[in-house]
């Protein structure tokens, strides 16, 4: 029983982290219709920036996290400007290939700056709470709180502000939004800033929950991608639910299968979904998807 609860908690934490990245992912996808492979790598850079500020420079952890998030926004924005915007009218594979290039570059930078060794934020593990026989550490409680907070901020922004409504409207129908006075280019910038911020938050939380490794970029990208597909491409909140499901599935999977297969479980789920319900759990089947 207590193991199960523990796994559920771990699943919740991991799942919400994936979910938060996935939301940023689907925002970018729904507006630009391209898969920004580099998204998870921005999370990884954010994770390391917080490390530099807090461990190397001895700043307060909270301040480090905030500065890391801000810098990641800057990174996301400059990548959009330098690498994606010039390609908007290029042939359809070009942005995807470029984003793979950007991912690769970010990982190389991380390797050069921080090295391949596993690092951690060196936050002492303090005694946590006992819930139904399982233990939640203080860090995990902080993670869950931070996740809830950032989700609330995001939802408030998307649902309650005119900017958020404009983002969702642009995702729905870009030309119509333009006819209503929305400058699509600035919306794209906002989406990149927002998405990068969410990615950095997720990256830092993931660093707290596990460790810091340059390969995290790929892990985050792939799982968020899977979460987005699971939730249905183009549905912003679908990614959140997809992320949670993947988090639970890979952690509960450990119940049946040795832990080393954890990552493979996520990918296997993905392949099965593609086979069975390719439009995702919450996506609508498009009429043009008749088998050729």
């Amino acid at each position, binding site marked *: 029983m207590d193991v199960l609860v523990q796994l559920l908690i771990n699943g919740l934490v991991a799942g919400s982290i994936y979910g938060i990245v996935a939301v940023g992912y689907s925002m970018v996808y729904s507006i630009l219709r391209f898969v920004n492979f580099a998204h998870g790598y921005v999370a990884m850079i954010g994770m390391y920036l917080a490390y530099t500020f807090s461990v190397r420079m001895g700043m307060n952890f909270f301040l480090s996290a905030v500065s890391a998030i801000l810098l990641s926004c800057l990174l996301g924005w400059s990548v959009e400007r330098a690498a994606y915007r010039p*390609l908007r009218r290029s042939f359809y594979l*070009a942005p995807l290939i470029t984003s*793979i290039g950007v991912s*690769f570059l970010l990982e190389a*930078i991380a390797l050069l700056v921080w090295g391949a060794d596993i690092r951690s934020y060196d936050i002492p593990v303090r005694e946590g709470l006992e819930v139904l026989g399982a233990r939640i550490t203080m860090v995990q409680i902080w993670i869950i709180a931070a996740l809830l907070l950032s989700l609330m901020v995001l939802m408030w922004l998307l649902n309650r502000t005119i900017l958020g409504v404009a983002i969702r409207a642009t995702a729905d129908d870009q030309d119509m939004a333009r006819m209503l006075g929305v400058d699509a280019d600035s919306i794209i910038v906002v989406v990149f800033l927002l998405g990068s911020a969410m990615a950095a938050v997720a990256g830092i939380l993931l660093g707290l929950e596990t460790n810091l490794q340059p390969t995290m970029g790929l892990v985050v990208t792939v799982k968020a991608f899977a979460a987005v597909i699971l939730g249905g*491409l183009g549905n912003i909140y679908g990614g959140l639910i997809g992320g949670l499901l993947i988090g639970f599935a890979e952690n509960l999977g450990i119940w049946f299968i040795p832990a080393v297969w954890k990552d493979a479980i996520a990918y296997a789920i993905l392949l099965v979904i593609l086979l069975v319900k390719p439009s995702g759990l919450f996506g609508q089947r498009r009429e043009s998807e008749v088998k*050729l």
Partner: protein
Amino acid sequence: MIYHLVTLIGIYGMLAVGLNLVVGYTGLFSLGHAAFFGLGAYTSALLSLAGAPVFTGMLAGGIIGALGGWLVGYSTVNLRGDYFCLGTLAFGEITRAVFTNWIGLTRGPMGLPGIPRPSLFGVPIKSVEQYMVLALIFLALSLAFAERLVKSPFGRMLRSIREDDVAAASLGKNVGRTKIVAVMAGSFMAGVAGGLYAHYITYIDPMGFTLNQSIFILVLVVFGGLGNNYGSIMGAVILVVVREGLRFLGLPSSVSAALQQAIYSVLLIGLMLVRPRGLLGEVKYMTRGDSSRSLEGGGE
């Protein structure tokens, strides 16, 4: 050293030519080519370690690779492009997990040492020079195979599907099956290349078949020009030389690996911004059925 370099170029050239069939000619964006490479390498290595002749192992590697291609193709080929990309990526990660965790079979991260070198007509191929010749023969065969394929009506059909699969279906082309066949052909070549690699290095471990490897192969194809087999080989020549060349700088291995990666990525991004269709671009096929062009002064 130069022999070693050429051998590697042979192997990567084969991988790139195979992937070009999928990405360049059929328009399916694959992020899992290293998986088929790995399947071939492990199949061939395990079979030969169990006593099978090396070339049988390589053939089996190709077949297993093609089966993997069928699996991915079958589940994703009828979906939108991004899904194929994702499906191949997932497949790649699953195969890597299998290589790493099925310790009873693959010895996991410890890898498989002592893979035998092949022998041809009783003559063992021991030296690097000999192996280089073997690799070049394989590369030439793959190139001939791929060129014949893309220049045949089959290749023309592949390109028509890449251009507009709905229109191709409306003309009676079996789009789904054709795509799967193309993916299988590409992964067959990757599987054989895997065998070639395993018996050359004589040691394989899961680290050789990661997503980064898939991306490296993809970069070779994109770099030379999608839909151009010679471009793929040129990509392999340049980038393998760059990659191996960096080893001579005497940097610590951790730095040189990262530097290498940084160089590719900058090359790739720069290329996309300047020449999104790759260095050579696509070959324009002028498959005319007549010689009347000269008679009437031609169309251009």
